[in-house]
């Protein structure tokens, strides 16, 4: 019967010890332990969340980067295209301008040449005239060396005038 009869002494000591141990552990063990575990779980959860966010952000960043790269490429292509076009127009314009200039130069050259030619012709004319006069002088001089010839000439001139 001793086995199944509770004893007052043991009940008393158990009540005291168990209350005491529950109080002491609740105050000095369970409270900090539960707090510590909770805190750690929180920090782990937060860290996981942050890692997830970072991953998402990374993906977004990567997509953004790709977009940026694509845009940059497009812009470069456009720039290249524009540059090429501009080069062509510039070259074309230059060519046109050069042609015009050349034509102008040729024209003015031609005018110069014309003028020079005219001047040269005039000069030549004048010289020919003066040379002709000299020759005529000399010829006349010779013709008029004697009286007979002077007479002859006068007659001939007179004859010419008469005829005219």
């Amino acid at each position, binding site marked *: 019967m001793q086995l199944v009869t509770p004893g007052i*002494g043991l009940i008393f000591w158990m009540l005291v010890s168990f209350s005491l141990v529950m109080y002491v552990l609740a105050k000095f063990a*369970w409270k900090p332990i539960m707090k510590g575990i909770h805190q750690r779980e929180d920090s782990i959860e937060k860290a996981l969340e942050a890692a997830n966010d970072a991953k998402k952000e990374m993906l977004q960043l990567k997509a953004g980067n790709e977009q940026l790269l694509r845009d940059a490429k497009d812009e470069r292509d456009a720039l290249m295209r524009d540059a090429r076009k501009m080069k062509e127009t510039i070259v074309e314009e230059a060519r046109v301008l050069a042609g015009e200039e050349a034509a102008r130069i040729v024209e003015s050259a031609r005018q110069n040449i014309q003028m020079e030619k005219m001047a040269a012709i005039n000069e030549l004319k004048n010289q020919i005239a003066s040379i002709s006069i000299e020759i005529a002088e000399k010829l006349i001089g010779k013709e008029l060396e004697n009286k007979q010839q002077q007479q002859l000439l006068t007659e001939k001139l007179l004859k010419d005038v008469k005829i005219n």
Partner: protein
Amino acid sequence: MVRTLIDTVRLQVVLFAVLIAGFAYGNPVTTDTAAIPQNNLHEQTGEKAFDAGKMIIDHIVDAHEWHILTYNDFHLAIPLPVILLDNGKLVSFSSSHFHHGKEAYRGYRLETEGPNEGKIVKTLEDGETVDASAKLPLDFSITKNVVSLFISVLLLCLIFISIANKYKKNPDVAPKGLQSVLEPLILFVRDDIAIPGLGKKNYARFMPFLLTVFFFIFLNNLLGLIPIFPGGANLTGNISITLVLALFTFAITTYNGNKNYWMHIINAPGVPWWLKFPVPLMPIVELVGLITKPFVLMVRLFANMTAGHIILLGFMSLIFIFGKMNIFAGYGVSVFSLAFGVFMSLLELLVAFIQAYVFALLSSIYFGMAMEEHHHPEEHTTDH
């Protein structure tokens, strides 16, 4: 789940009763207190018979000394202080004065047989014969179980305060050493005992009790499995201890019972009126249920732990019972007994954990039931 557990307990109680009856009364030979079997010198002279029932009971009940071993007539035991409250008078002395029950001291004697076996009784004026008419003095002695209780309480405080300091120092570091062994158990109590029974909203308030009860039972179950001094006291297999544990659960349940809980007991909804009036049958049934819950908690733990110890000691006793018949039979049986003993010890390790789990889980379920807010009407018919 609760229902199946209660069924298991009923079965266990029946089995346990059969076992006790078998061991306690199956072999009613009286011997002296030296219950541990003697060497073969005694056996050959046929001087002492081996009483397995008495040996087993002596090992699982409380004692006023911590017996370690007996060899022939030499007893090695740690004497423990006796504290008596006799008619308002406090008397205390060492239990060694009783000489294992052979002598009386200061008008008291340690009874070794009869209904008061193991208790301290008063003697008549001659200081020797037991005074059968006198009331028993109240025994507040520091017995074997009380010492074991103190050791386990000290161990609990040491272990958990030391790991609590680690949590205080750096809570964000992964657990190390003892902390890493105990943290899964603490989390187990929280996630598999407290939260399922009480819900996420209420559980935190009950964690100190559930954790204390779980680790107290678990540690003492394990200490009970150690056969020599610091352990081996069968503390959780003592009805006084389980009674107090169950009382705590009962007190907390009652304290936390809400209106819903008490209404259920006084005026259970969904039950025909003639079951409550004029004979208040249902309230009586409910009230009995109120007491049954902690009672079952008390008996389950006590019976499980005691039964485990009895079976283990039974296997060991077989060696000596056969040894008395024939020395070689004893050796032969020892092989099987040891094998079964090892098997039982391993099983007891499992039981040590399961009983701690079940006690804490049921406590948490009872608390949860006391605090349950609302019942759906259709549940009432199947609730009880």
